[in-house]
């Protein structure tokens, strides 16, 4: 049985690197990423599970880091936007008007990245189901949908 008192030393594997940190057991993963590790890509917006601006990948699955405790995810693989480099989805967002103010973008990109990995050939219904987890107040979503399609095309062409 594992037990942590109010303050605990844990080790987190973020973007492929192990880090030992002192955290409060009540600290959310989002708070630890932003305030202890300086990884501010994930945003603290609603902190209520509604908006998806805090999305990170946990063992390849998108999760909302505002509703997870850091102590829960010890030893698991966490990917934040800072760990994503030169991917098709990032390029597609740049080239297809996938963002305007950019506040929601890290969450959308990570969610879309996980979607492309899990379902390289997903239909529109699956795309919609996944992307509905994130809210964008600027783009009207068309640029985001276009970016996802473009990234899928780039990936398909790359693997031919």
């Amino acid at each position, binding site marked *: 049985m594992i037990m942590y*008192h109010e303050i605990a030393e844990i080790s987190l594997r973020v973007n492929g690197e192990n880090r030992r940190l002192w955290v409060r057991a009540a600290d959310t993963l989002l708070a630890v990423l932003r305030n202890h590790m300086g990884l501010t890509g994930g945003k603290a917006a609603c902190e209520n599970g509604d908006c*998806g601006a805090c999305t990170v990948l946990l063992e390849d699955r998108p999760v909302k880091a505002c*509703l997870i405790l850091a102590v829960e995810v010890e030893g698991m693989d966490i990917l934040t936007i800072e760990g994503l480099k030169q991917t098709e989805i990032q390029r597609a967002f740049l080239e297809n008007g996938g963002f305007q103010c950019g506040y929601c973008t890290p969450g959308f990109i990570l969610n879309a990245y996980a979607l492309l990995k899990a379902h390289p050939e997903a239909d529109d219904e699956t795309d919609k189901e996944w992307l509905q987890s994130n809210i964008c107040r600027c783009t009207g979503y068309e640029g985001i949908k276009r970016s996802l399609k473009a990234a899928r095309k780039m990936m398909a062409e790359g693997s031919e």
Partner: protein
Amino acid sequence: MISFNFKYIRPSTVEEAVSSYIQLSRVYKRVLYYSGGTEILSFARNHAIEADVIIDIKAIPECRRLQHHQNRIIYGAALTLNEIIEENTLPLLTSVFKGIADHTLRNRITLGGNICSKLIYREAVLPLMLTEAEIRIAGENGVRREKFNSIFDKSLRIEKGELLVDVSIDKSFEGAGFCSIRKVNRGEVDYPILHLEMLKRKGLKAAFSGVLNFPFRSDAIDAVLNDNVDIDEMIEKIMHLIPGKIKQDQWATWHYRQMLLKKAIRSAYTHLEVR
């Protein structure tokens, strides 16, 4: 940010979880089982819930299994909704769970956490009400098995410190026809202002969420559904059997909800009768 502190423990067996709960409750006032954490953390941020100790049940293999055993399928209480959806063991479960929250949240929300949620919706209970599900509950005196419908009355009637371990459903429900009607105020991802599930197997059965302050089903409503009366008469009779006052809130007036409910019963009934 959560502005108060708590201890966190992660037991690896059901016995450890229950005995920790009992022992810690002697010292601390507020001990909570913790599953997906989505409700506990969002409530904690607003001080709608406070805890001295939380007991995370996700490392307990019994609470994490999805297993076929004889003629039943067993779903551990700490399985996430997406883990159950992806296995697609029973189409009814898959369909209902896909309507709950959003895809990313369903990677954390668990079956047990939804059943024990303090909010009024608890949509995961609807298929359990319709499929004669059984549950196992662990407490001070060991593990007991209960019929879901005999222990769920507005909420799950378990004692303080009892842990929902798993849910099991007979495999024969796999082929049963069903109709889901879920209405939200705006968009697609939201709590329902009405959710009706109707199942056809040896007659029709219905279960509801979003209509009252709790999810419900009733033998009397099921009897009317199978009474072979004129459909308008049937709907009026059902309206008189709703076990409470239809909700009115900022998302829908009671009048609008009642209209949606009548329409939903008509569509589901027609759909399943034709089948």
